[in-house]
């Protein structure tokens, strides 16, 4: 990572935890974990509160749908780390296979419910152009998404427009698929806290 403090500036207890995780998982510590565990009172802990609510709180979308949104936002931002990480989580949440990865390749031909497709397209525009207008929202509503579903999707978008920027700015390294797989299992089992 571009800041040494994010690689090795953690306290003794956190370093010991990282060593334990490396031993048990036989995978390197993902850079996103190093980030949220560095001075966690400043960013990691308050941000995790937001992300946990958006991704695992009560919602009109399934966990798989929300993880797919996260991966789609990351792909729109061309953030390789977050795209790979959340594709892996979405695939797991959808019951295995490569459904999320396939959906990310082509929203138009992929078999996907219209409300989710319209919501993803709106999130893509918001992420790419930094704004959407009332007509964009009316199109999503016309496709069958409820205002509550749109609100839930915007919460996901907030979190991943923060995290993706930090991944790019701090220079997260992109590890092996096995490391992402281990991270995905953790996020399904434990969430974002």
């Amino acid at each position, binding site marked *: 990572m*571009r*800041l*040494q*403090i*994010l690689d090795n*500036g953690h306290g003794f207890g956190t370093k010991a935890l990282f060593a334990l995780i490396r031993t048990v998982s036989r995978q390197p510590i993902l850079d996103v974990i190093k980030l949220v565990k*560095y*001075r966690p*009172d*400043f*960013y990691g802990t*308050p*941000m995790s*509160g*937001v992300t*946990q*609510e*958006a991704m695992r*709180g*009560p*919602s*009109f979308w399934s966990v798989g749908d929300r993880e797919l949104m996260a991966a789609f936002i990351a792909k729109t*931002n*061309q*953030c390789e780390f977050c795209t790979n990480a959340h594709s892996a989580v979405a695939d797991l949440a959808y019951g295995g296979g490569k459904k999320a990865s396939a959906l990310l390749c082509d929203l138009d031909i992929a078999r996907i419910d219209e409300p989710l497709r319209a919501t993803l397209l709106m999130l893509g525009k*918001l*992420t790419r152009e*930094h*704004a*959407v*207008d*009332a*007509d*964009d*929202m*009316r199109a999503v*509503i016309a496709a069958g998404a409820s*205002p*509550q579903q*749109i*609100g*839930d999707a*915007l*919460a996901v*978008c*907030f*979190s991943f*427009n*923060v995290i*993706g*920027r*930090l991944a*790019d*700015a*701090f*220079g997260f390294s992109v590890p092996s698929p096995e490391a992402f797989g281990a991270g995905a299992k953790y996020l399904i089992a434990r969430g974002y806290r």
Partner: protein
Amino acid sequence: MSNIEPARKALLRRVREGEGKASPSDRRAAFDNKGLTEPLRPLADKVARNAREIVDEDIDRARQSGLSEDQIFEIVVCAAIGQATRQYDAASAALKSALEM
């Protein structure tokens, strides 16, 4: 329906107003992407508008100007949260407008 507002407000309050290594005015300026001077201005702007184009030299320039890594960390975090906040607020207003018409 999820409700991120209490946690989101706590996050914004913490990074803008809480204790930090960078000054609160610099953190607020990074959040707003407005009012920073070199070398933080171009870094915060890149984080907000085009984060994938950030390269080592962007961080190095900030470091070489005398800023500590902790200060750079805080400024980058504030810039990222600020831009995501503007997007979130714009989209929430658009949704509200769509429902009122």
